[in-house]
């Protein structure tokens, strides 16, 4: 992807080619370990504190062929799971020393199981993330996280110390602050960055050492602020739903008369929402943050997800929400009609879009977004009249 921001260009350069990038090779050259993770409610701080590189396992901007995945996993599994598995089967994740996941959905649970069964790494782990945000759940989660810390310490050959955790928390909190500032700029009537650029910035967070990333993010923020750039597009959109890692999808939307100004994705706003309370003992601070601070999602039952989406849409002054779902993602698919009803009730236009994670943006998607933008335009004209 081309960008006029030097720091973003550097992030992209350092994290290419995906997944075994320049950065990963340099890291491994120093005899250091890389631990994969797929679900973003898994505290990366703990991996970082163990002096290992947390690497977010995902797809990227290129379409993924699915032949190997389809021979392993039946096609009625989501394309996120199959897309990751395709890369595993192609040995693209051979650089990982370990993989840790959370059984938050059928796909994530079985990604771990298949990996363990067929491509076992030296370190494999799975940590439960509670489906209820309560004090009882917190106590259980805290024990689970402490035990994970012990197992990871054992793999490291040295206990992960509190002071290491405290340092990691500070670094990750700094990322959260910077990302929050970055998103604040997108609230401007004419935002200085596109949604596609933002996604590239977000992806890099899970692919490089946090110290290096924060430096580049500070530079990027500074560059954006100084650029005086104003994106003049007719409509402001929000993306809600499954994580997208292919910025071409967003670029295709933004090639029309629209700019994406915010999102409700794990890789996006949910990733940097709030901060770990640094005044608490480090593990408790981490557990409380991940359980209570992050906006709730479809996997949490009796969630406040719809309210949160609507509030964010108002804050970012969006004209419409693109609610995308990857087929066979049961939690989001089941939410789909309810999200539409709730947004309709609040007068917020929604375009429901089905995406295949592994594919490039197609003509059908473009036509539907175009029609949605036209509807938004007509709506605005009617309101003005």
């Amino acid at each position, binding site marked *: 992807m081309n960008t006029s921001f030097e720091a973003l260009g550097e992030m992209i350069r350092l994290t290419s080619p995906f997944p075994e990038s320049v950065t990963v090779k340099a890291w491994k050259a120093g005899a250091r370990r890389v631990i994969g993770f797929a679900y973003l409610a898994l505290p990366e701080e703990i991996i970082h504190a163990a002096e290992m590189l947390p690497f977010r396992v995902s797809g990227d901007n290129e379409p993924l062929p699915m032949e190997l995945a389809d021979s392993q996993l039946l096609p*009625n599994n989501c394309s996120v799971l199959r897309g990751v598995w395709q890369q595993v089967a192609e040995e693209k994740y051979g650089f990982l020393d370990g993989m840790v996941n959370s059984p938050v959905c059928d796909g994530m649970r*079985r990604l771990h199981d298949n990996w363990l069964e067929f491509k076992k790494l030296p370190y494999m782990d799975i940590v439960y993330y509670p489906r209820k945000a309560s004090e009882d759940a917190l106590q*259980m989660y805290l024990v689970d996280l402490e035990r994970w810390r012990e197992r990871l310490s054992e793999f490291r050959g040295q206990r992960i110390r509190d002071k290491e955790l405290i340092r990691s928390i500070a670094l990750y909190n700094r990322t959260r602050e910077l990302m929050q500032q970055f998103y604040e700029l997108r609230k401007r009537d004419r935002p200085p960055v596109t949604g596609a650029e933002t996604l590239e910035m977000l992806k890099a967070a899970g692919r490089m050492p946090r110290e290096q990333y924060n430096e580049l993010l500070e530079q990027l923020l500074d560059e954006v602020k100084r650029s005086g750039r104003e994106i003049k597009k007719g409509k402001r959109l929000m993306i809600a739903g499954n994580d997208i890692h292919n910025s071409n999808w967003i670029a295709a939307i933004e090639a029309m008369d629209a700019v994406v100004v915010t999102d409700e994705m794990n890789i996006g706003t949910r990733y940097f929402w709030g901060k770990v309370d640094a005044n608490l003992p480090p593990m408790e601070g981490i557990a409380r943050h991940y359980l209570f601070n992050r906006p709730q999602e479809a996997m949490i039952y009796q969630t406040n997800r719809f309210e949160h989406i609507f509030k964010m849409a108002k804050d970012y002054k969006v004209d419409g929400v693109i609610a995308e779902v990857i087929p*066979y993602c*049961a939690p989001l*698919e089941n939410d789909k009609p309810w999200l539409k009803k709730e947004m309709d009730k609040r007068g917020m236009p929604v375009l429901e879009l089905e995406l295949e994670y592994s594919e490039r943006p197609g003509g059908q998607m473009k036509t539907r977004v175009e029609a949605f933008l036209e509807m938004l335009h007509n709506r605005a004209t009617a309101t003005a009249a």
Partner: protein
Amino acid sequence: MSATQFMTVTDLAGRLHMAVEGLKKKPGLMKSGVGYLKLVEDYVQAVADAPKNGKLVVLHGTQMPTEIFYAMDIVPLFNELYSVVLTMMGAPPHVLYDLSAENGLPATICAFNRSMDGLLLNGAAPEVDLCAWHGSSCDNTPACLQNVARTRNVPTFFMDRPYKIFHDHTVAYWKKQHEELIEFLEIHSGKKMDYDRLKEAVDLSYRCTKLCLEIDRYVEMVPCPMSNEAAFGPFLAARQFGGHIKAVEYLEGLRDELKERVAKGIVAAKPERFRYIFDVSCPYYDMGLMELAQRKYGAVVVGDHIARWRGTAEWLTDPDDPIGNLANKQQFNLGNENYQPGVEWRDQVLEMAQKTRADAAIFFNNMGCRTGSSMNRILKDNLEKKLGIPSLVIDCDILDPTYAPRAATEEQMDRFFEMVENSAAYKARRNLQ
């Protein structure tokens, strides 16, 4: 479609009654096959009668502690069972699917959700007062219950079931979830839990577990005395009647019938050419497939992973702590490995295949279900490589017989059993070389 055109709970109870009477007249069936359907009739009738009996109905998901509902005189209704029974009694699920799709629910989600969604939209869903579910064993089950709760605007309770349940701290959390469920039910029923009654229900449930294990030993016999029409009786009794005397009575009857059949040398298929297992679920959309397999190929179903207790299932550890016992029960519950780390599921299927001396495995791949489809390769490879047991995958919709028509499935089964029969592992197992 209007509500009058679709089967209501009263219609369904009526049809079940007629089916039971019809089955009684059919020669050659196990008594417990009729008893199985009678249990289903009683179950649905209790739901139909609940309003006039002044009882609350709780719609619940898989593996919920029915003992608590029975002890509080609340009528349980398992959403999946209701959809299955409707289909078995001839209701066309695709009508419900169409309604659900019109309302925005994608066609890629589980048949049970789409069917229940259709019933709600159609107005033919049974009246329920409460909803309760837990995070086991897949993403779709809780979502379905949440959908019902939102549509009907009824009070709901969600039990957060930890993933790795064999630890003290997770069992303690899980026990607390049971206590909170009781509090929830007390608030909404206006009745206090009678703990002596709960203890009785838990004792009955444990007796039911032990009877299921006893019955498993009969099923493991070669040749197998259990005929397909009663094969899923223990599952139904333990899942839906856990904590009710009916489960114990039914299972004692089934156990005694099997004992008698063994004594008299009565077997399911003569000759018994194949013994097969299901590694996720049986074909609810066409249960006649099992009868076909038994008659046409001499293939007897000897195990379904989802209907199997873990190990010796000794979950009643403290007679004076009924809630603690129920929390323990989940560790051993029928098919709960679906929600456990895959290695546990794999190992249990391997153990079941060995104990039942299975020759083959059939995997009904319900298109809306991920939890099985993402495990299939692990199970298939292990069965094949470690035990020389081949697997057949049949893509289906678990409720809709039009998705996988009988003729096409029969052709698949023809080829499969022929392949099994010619395999070296089969010949070695049967001393045919």
